[in-house]
């Protein structure tokens, strides 16, 4: 059985430690992860901006990269969500459409795979900090990843969970939106960071690095000492320090 990591460009380039945490956690549960090096980006920036010819090129590279995989795991609900758009992207190309559907069916956001496929909720981690959680929009709304991260966090020893007010509101990232409509995006991330501050949490955790980079960037800009982590990082740290 071939379980492959779809690293996503953000984790590959900026946050390799998140990919590393996933690979090591899965190895602890008997899954030897494979990494097809031909993979690049899911194509979402082009897709969301309306450049579908360009998006199709990236999509084709991803579809080919994971053709032989049985499961494709990624540290992002948004990039996994993009794979769910591939069938639409190739709706006029029956062959590519069916390959796109195949990929969609075997793609999982990391916590989906851990909880729903491997059946793991208690990973044996200890993390004695006050933690709040931002559910990213694409993962929670489009993929329906809501209970999985909660189940994982509630099994972590010592973790004190504080709900984030208006948690379901978008952080304002939105890909090219954050550049094109910088001031609207800025207002949104400022409000999100305000809510994080209100919780007095020491750690903000999430499942999407783009959103986390956005919120962390604003918290750092304002000099707020909140630590921002992907849930995989938190779990791995909690397992190794336990």
């Amino acid at each position, binding site marked *: 059985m071939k379980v492959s990591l779809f690293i996503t460009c953000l984790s590959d380039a900026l946050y390799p430690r998140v990919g590393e945490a996933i690979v*090591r956690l899965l190895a602890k549960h*008997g899954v030897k992860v494979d990494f097809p090096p031909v993979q690049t*980006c899911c194509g979402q920036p082009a897709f969301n901006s309306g450049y579908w010819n360009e998006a199709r090129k990236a999509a084709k590279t991803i579809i080919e990269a994971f053709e032989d995989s049985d499961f494709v795991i990624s540290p992002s609900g948004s990039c996994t969500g993009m794979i769910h758009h591939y069938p639409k992207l190739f709706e006029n190309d029956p062959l590519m459409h069916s390959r796109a559907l195949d990929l969609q069916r075997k793609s999982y956001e990391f916590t989906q795979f851990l909880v729903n496929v491997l059946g793991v909720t208690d990973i044996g981690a200890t993390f004695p900090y006050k933690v709040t959680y931002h559910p990213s*929009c694409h993962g929670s*709304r489009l993929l329906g990843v809501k209970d999985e991260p909660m189940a994982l966090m509630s099994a972590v020893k010592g973790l004190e969970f504080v709900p984030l007010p208006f948690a379901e509101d978008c952080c304002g990232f939105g890909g090219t939106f954050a*550049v094109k409509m910088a001031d609207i995006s800025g207002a*949104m*991330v400022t409000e999100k960071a305000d809510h994080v501050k209100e919780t007095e949490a020491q750690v903000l955790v999430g499942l999407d690095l783009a959103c986390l980079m956005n919120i962390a960037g604003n918290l750092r800009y304002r000099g707020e000492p909140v630590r921002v982590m992907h849930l995989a990082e938190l779990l791995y740290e909690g397992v190794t320090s336990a």
Partner: protein
Amino acid sequence: MSGHGHGTAPATVKERADLALNDEFLRKAVKFTTERLRAGKKNAAEDHGNWDDWRERGRQIRLHTIANLDYYLNLFADNARANGVHVHFADTAAEAVKLSLDIARHAQAKTVVKSKSMVTEELHLNQALASIGVEAIETDLGEYIIQLANETPSHIIIPAIHKNRYQIADLLSKEAGETLEPDTQILAGFVRKKLREKFLEADIGMTGCNFAIAETGSMVLFENEGNARMVTTVPRTQITLMGMERIIPSWEDLEVMATLLPRSATGQKLTVYMSGITGPKRAADADGPEEMHIIIVDNGRSLQLGDPEFQELLNCIRCGACLNACPVYRHIGGHAYGGTYSGPIGAVLTPALKKNVAEWDDIANASSLCGACYEACPVKIPLHEMLIYLRRRKVEAGEGKLLEGLGMKGFAAAMKTSGRFKTVLKLGKLGQKLVARNGEIRLKAGPLKGWNSYRITPSLPKHSFRDKWKTLEEEIRHGLQELDPAAKARMEALVKEREQGGGGHEHG
């Protein structure tokens, strides 16, 4: 105040949004009310139970009606005519305005009292009436305030959502010629008294239409203030303007809509007044108009018919739930959208109603595509996807931005192979040497100007994941644990299920 009078708003979405972002009064007022409405909706939906099943029922009714719109429109028109209503069809805004003015002239009208109607806003009917010397008076409290301020509504349901009660008290005090306390009771009391006189004088009552019932040719109005009741009973002539998609087949279907609309709009279980009107005053009736007209307006709506990506747009029941849920709307209010309809529905509807792509502005870009609108929508319109389709159509029509187009070509070239991707990473690491300090980039220039005005950007670490993979793979090969047999069985079952054509998990 950033009130937008008619035709004075700046040209671009960004400029309009900046006006709102710098208006603390507006942002506070919009946040306060949208939060209240959103919480109300959430509670009402939970109290009612099985909300997603109701949404699906609503969606099915709307899908069926729009798929057979020609049939139901004819049925409605035939039945309404049989009830004694004059039914008119208007292809364009200009035609709808002309029909309305002709009726007003024929009735030798001096004043028109109006209940809330977004279609008449779309047609700019008040100004057209004024141009032939007919005074139009808005009688919905919010619309009345907006009319006094010479502005346009900034929300589908709450036209004056961007004003606080002090600003409203100022406006009404000017009208009253005395200082009115900023107390809701006092202010509403003043308007009620003022409007009573207007109702009695008016020659024409003008309304919109929430739902038109095909099986009996009736029109139904939902409202909370009782003003629509007055508008449809006192004046001698009634004119109703309705979008051609307002139809539902039957009264039975109305039950579903009456469950969805007030809860989604304001969190109310029932609207205070729900009036069903089937024709003008009959001999035995004590009140009602002697003459009744219904003008059915197309104005770009039929462009969506037969378009698989946009037909569902006609399913909208104008509840405003997507506005209240939208994190962009909450910061920039309605006027920034630049059209009659604001929020996510406006961002899609405004361009979609125009055939000429060159006339579309940048509004479809003012969304982070978070999907809160879809989640809030009582008839499940995928607005977040439609926004992407609009962007794509603009690019396909050659109306995209030159620089962005070049950028995306570069993006596609870089992402075509992992070799090129690695080259880009290498260049990035070289480039950032000039600007990165201690793992951070704080530069506020070039493409990072907007982003770094609110954030600090992390710089690229020395090694990417793919650089580290070889070593990592070696390490985990040694420490690999046993896979739980139950997990293994689950994985095998999933693969088998997929091979048989099913399985996996679909788009939520």
